[in-house]
């Protein structure tokens, strides 16, 4: 099982702007659930609170109100039940690819041969069999993020939390990584919460899309595309994809406040 819920999660920041203290309501009573084995995209313009919501789900930030549950149990702080994939991979630069994956496992208490073998297995899984001993600066952006994904998957979390993981990659690499993620999802059936600002990406990979604006959920929509998604290039050409993408676009632009 792996189900993560945000229940009435709110978040206020206080900022000091030119000597005045301002309160920013980053999240207002946000509630949604990512069901077992499901991929949910959290999408919205920058500053809408999507990353804050993800970070609260991970336990990297505390909510001002509300709670987060994993499989119905409330969680406080970080835990091995959730695996985080960071926006820029955030590999430790002094460790090799293999050691980076091992780091997460070690923190879970794994030692010895099992540790090495498990890390190697997950690197193989993301297609980096031959780059185990490279350091991050010897890896391309896509490869780094593969290591980041392997590191999070290796601890076998119930839920994978991904924070715009492909946002910094070039368009072609991004498409490859999206395919790769679909393949990994087929094999592992992980529950995934995926933050993105990319309409195409949200519609391509998700089962459901949560559209956020100004700290609130604007709309939750079902993606009518079958699984396995298979060739994403082909999926992009389908009417269902185009319709979904358009619906998300509409939700993001409906009675747009004077923001632009």
């Amino acid at each position: 099982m792996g189900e993560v819920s945000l229940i009435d999660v709110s978040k206020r920041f206080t900022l000091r702007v030119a000597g005045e203290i301002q309160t920013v309501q980053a999240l207002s009573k946000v509630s949604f659930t990512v069901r077992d084995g499901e991929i949910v995209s959290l999408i919205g313009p920058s500053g809408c609170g999507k990353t804050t919501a993800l970070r609260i789900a991970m336990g990297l930030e505390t909510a001002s109100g509300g709670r987060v549950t994993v499989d119905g149990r409330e969680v406080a702080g970080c835990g091995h039940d959730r695996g985080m994939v960071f926006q820029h991979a955030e590999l430790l630069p002094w460790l090799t690819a293999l050691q980076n994956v091992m780091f997460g496992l070690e923190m879970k208490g794994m030692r010895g041969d099992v540790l090495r073998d498990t890390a190697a297995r997950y690197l193989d899984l993301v297609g980096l069999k031959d780059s185990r001993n490279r350091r991050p600066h010897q890896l391309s952006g896509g490869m780094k993020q593969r290591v980041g994904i392997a590191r999070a998957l290796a601890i076998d979390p119930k839920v994978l939390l991904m924070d715009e993981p492909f946002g910094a990659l070039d368009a072609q690499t991004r498409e490859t990584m999206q395919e790769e993620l679909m393949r990994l999802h087929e094999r592992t059936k992980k529950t995934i919460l995926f933050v993105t600002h990319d309409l195409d990406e949200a519609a391509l990979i998700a089962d459901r899309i949560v559209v956020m604006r100004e700290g609130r959920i604007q709309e939750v929509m079902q993606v009518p595309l079958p699984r396995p998604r298979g060739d994403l290039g082909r999926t992009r050409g389908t009417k269902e994809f185009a319709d979904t993408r358009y619906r998300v676009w509409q939700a993001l632009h409906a009675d747009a406040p004077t923001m632009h």
Partner: protein
Amino acid sequence: MVEIAGRTASPPAAPAEPDTEARRRPLPAWVITTASVVVLLLVWEFFGRDINPVFGSYPSQIAIAFVDLARSGKLWAALADSLQPFAAGYALAIVIGVPLGLVIGRFRVVEAALGIYVTAGYAMPLIALVPLLVLWLGLGFKVKVATVFLMSIFPICINTWLGVTAVPKTLIEVGKSFVAPDSVILRRIILPATLPYIMAGIRLAVGRAVVAMVIAEFLTSISGLGAIIINSANNFDTATMFVPIVLLMVMAIGLNWLIGWVERLVAPWQAEIAGRDQE
């Protein structure tokens, strides 16, 4: 594709490249450094000869004085005398300064409680305090160690501290998200991420430690290389006075190089990231 092919064809023919590469290969750093030293020595030799030998000296005269001092064994005895408190004080500064800097940088409370002393300590006019240290620790080995220690701990500690505050927050979050305890985050994320800063601090401290050593030898029991400097200055033997001075500077260069070597050994990724590993 056609367009791309057209573009790659436009620059000059590829086979010419290795040739120009070879012709443009830059001079190795050591050649430049050697040339610089040779030029300096020649200029010094040329103009130094015109100066009254009490007011200045020049390389060949210093070299003769060096040979005299070395033959008599006085120089090596003095060097050994100086190096012991130097090594002890400097090592102590590293052993205490690095963990102290890590803790100050990592924990807000410690930073608020101890940060000001480190900042103030860096600016402490130590030379004025040496007489006080003498009252506490006597004239011997201990006060020399303390002087070297007090001069060199602050750059090490401050650099480490600054290094910790410069560690990207996201790297620490990587540790947190995998539920790493604070001690593991400090040892396995913050320490390696701070290593380049620590090594820079250790390098900066070399110069200060050397100065501190000589100050201590001047102001406490006159001994070591400092004694040679003072005694020859009192005898207006300027050339001999320069021998330990030059020796100390050469030693500092050697130590600096050694630290650089250690840095590449313990933090090889840093040189690789900065693209300096080919040099």
